């Protein structure tokens, strides 16, 4: 996953030519979600959601399908109404304001580009409704065509465009109305992987350029981690954690977040505190593991779930001298998955299989399947994600 945001192609147009030609900065607004609940029949789609999105923020709603993220976005857009609760744009309550009266625009998952209109007329749609002078419309449309890099395509019909181009039209069509908030409903999910990366970085650049609030719905953690200022992780109509990418990755609030964002090794066991104040996690499968406990609420005997990221574990062919801050286990390599600059190792320690990712170094001792190895990590890299 760490390969995702590294641009390897030095000639990539994205890096060469940032959008910086026009003054297209706009006024963003903050979004407040207060006690929003929504049921579809007996199914609770959203239960008591509270959220404060700051002015100009790139905010992502991330979660598996069916977690309610799209419903929440559709409520901000005005397509769906909450059963209870209110939505604020800045300090204005917009809960009962229709979608065509909100200073909010949406980019849809399936593009929703008007098939009967040219690229130009698609982008001009919102301005034409406002009966703005034709010359101004034309100037604006060309500005936004340039912003989304569709210069010269204005006469084409949507059927002549690729998926990525259609989504660019949709982005320009939304932004030309100078919304205070741009809502993006999985805008890249229908595109292929390479295009997705390019457009994502462009979206980030556009966001930096115009400075309005972006709310981005996705189920793809890499997209969300890469560009968001903050992310809300959702599951079953609730928000599990809100934080920056780093906070969410490094300090997941619970086992779901730890498992959903990136990969992790979850170790379950009970806490035992020895006479000389050593704290150990007694696991059923992996044996006894030294652990740091900073939370005074966690008492001896508590059952814990601990998350340990695969890249935090060092895999060594010979036994290291273990520092007091580190923990080391012995194991045997069961499987190796090679992926270029890094490899993934599945190592069996007692009955437990640990997942380790290691970037290859020059002159490293090659580890083979079946080898006896030592796994070493810093105790502080173990995150307690659940205790009781």
């Amino acid at each position, binding site marked *: 996953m760490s390969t995702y945001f590294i641009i390897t192609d030095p000639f990539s147009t994205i890096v060469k030519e940032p959008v910086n030609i026009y003054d297209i900065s706009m006024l963003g607004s903050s979004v407040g979600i207060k006690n929003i609940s929504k049921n579809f029949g007996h199914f609770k789609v959203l239960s008591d959601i509270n959220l404060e999105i700051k002015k100009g923020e790139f905010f992502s709603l991330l979660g598996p399908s069916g977690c309610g993220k799209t419903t929440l976005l559709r409520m901000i857009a005005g397509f769906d109404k909450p059963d209870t609760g209110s939505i604020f744009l800045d300090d204005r309550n917009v809960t009962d304001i229709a979608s065509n009266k909100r200073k909010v*625009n*949406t980019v849809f998952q399936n593009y*929703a580009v*008007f*098939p009967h209109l040219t690229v130009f007329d698609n982008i001009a749609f919102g301005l034409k409704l406002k009966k703005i002078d034709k010359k101004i419309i034309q100037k604006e449309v060309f500005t936004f065509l340039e912003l989304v890099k569709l210069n010269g395509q204005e006469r084409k019909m949507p059927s*002549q465009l690729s998926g990525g181009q259609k989504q660019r039209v949709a982005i320009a*069509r939304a932004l030309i109305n100078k919304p205070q908030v741009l809502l993006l409903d999985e805008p890249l999910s229908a595109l292929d992987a390479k295009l997705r990366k390019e457009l994502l970085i462009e979206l980030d650049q556009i966001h930096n350029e115009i400075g309005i609030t972006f709310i981005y719905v996705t189920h793809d953690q890499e997209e969300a981690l890469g560009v968001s200022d903050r992310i809300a992780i959702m599951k079953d109509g609730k928000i599990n954690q809100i934080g920056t990418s780093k906070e969410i990755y490094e300090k997941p609030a619970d086992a779901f977040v730890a498992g959903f964002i990136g990969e992790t090794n979850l170790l379950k066991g009970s806490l035992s505190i020895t006479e000389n104040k050593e704290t150990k996690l007694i696991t059923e499968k992996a044996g006894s593991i030294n652990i740091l406990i900073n939370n005074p609420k966690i008492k001896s005997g508590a059952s814990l779930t601990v998350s340990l990221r695969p890249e935090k574990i060092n895999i060594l062919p010979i036994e290291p001298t273990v520092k007091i801050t580190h923990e080391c286990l012995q194991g045997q390599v069961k499987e190796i998955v090679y992926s270029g600059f890094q490899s993934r190792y599945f190592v069996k320690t007692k009955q437990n299989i640990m997942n380790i990712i290691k970037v290859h170094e020059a002159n490293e001792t090659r580890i083979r399947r079946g080898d006896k190895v030592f796994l070493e990590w810093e105790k502080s890299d173990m995150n307690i994600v659940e205790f009781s």
Partner: protein
Amino acid sequence: MTEKSRLGHFYLFPLTIWSILFFVSPLIIIILYSFLTKDIYGGVIYTFSLKAYQSLIQLTYLKVFWFTLKISVISTAIIMFFAIPVSYYIARSPLKNVLLFLVLIPFWTNFLIRIYAWIAIMGNNGFLNQLLLSLHVLKTNIQFLYNPIAVIVVLVYTYLPFAILPLYAAIDKFDFTLLEASSDLGASRLQGILKVLLPNIRTGLMAAFLFAFIPIFGAYAVPQLVGGQESFMLGNMIARELTITRNWPLASAIATIITLVTCLGILLYIRSVRRSDEKDGK
């Protein structure tokens, strides 16, 4: 000719014979008859003549043509007025299969019987009069039948399903997120329907229009049975020329005119479909 297309022609052979025998040749006979001279007791004399077309220019015939056009346009307009919202509703309904079934039910009953049913409803002692009398809306019976309005009512009833079906098919395929997108961009509901829905279902609109307009333009039974003296349409004139006046070339000429008007409509339709196909890049 490739092996495959030869096989295709072979399979099409029975259908081609059928079309030529029962569709193309009668049409050719009608067109030929319209250029011949009338015989005194019906039939034709095989000498070329343009007399049938010349007599069509007379005021009485032009009046009938104008009346037919008027009735057709009004009925078709009313049909479209109802068909668009109804087919929209059906396409959006979770019960669309049931509703479609209801639209098709009238086809189980013979067309003429359904016209007689309307006579039973609208007649002098019909259900409608009885109802209005019992509600004291009317004091004496009213004759609803035997006027152009009765013709329009029954024509609208008869051909409404023909317009609903193609419109339903078009609206069912329509991507409704486009309406959300238009609302998102500031369009009201009406603007969304006018600027996004209607342009995207225009081939369905055109098909619905033709499916209603063409049979109405050639209507015979409806004006004959519920229209009375005032409602004399081209179809009735063909029947009169054929059976009473026994001017077969004239009857054929009127039929040819109807065919031409119909073909014109279909040509326009094909052109509009081709244009929208080009737009969709097919």
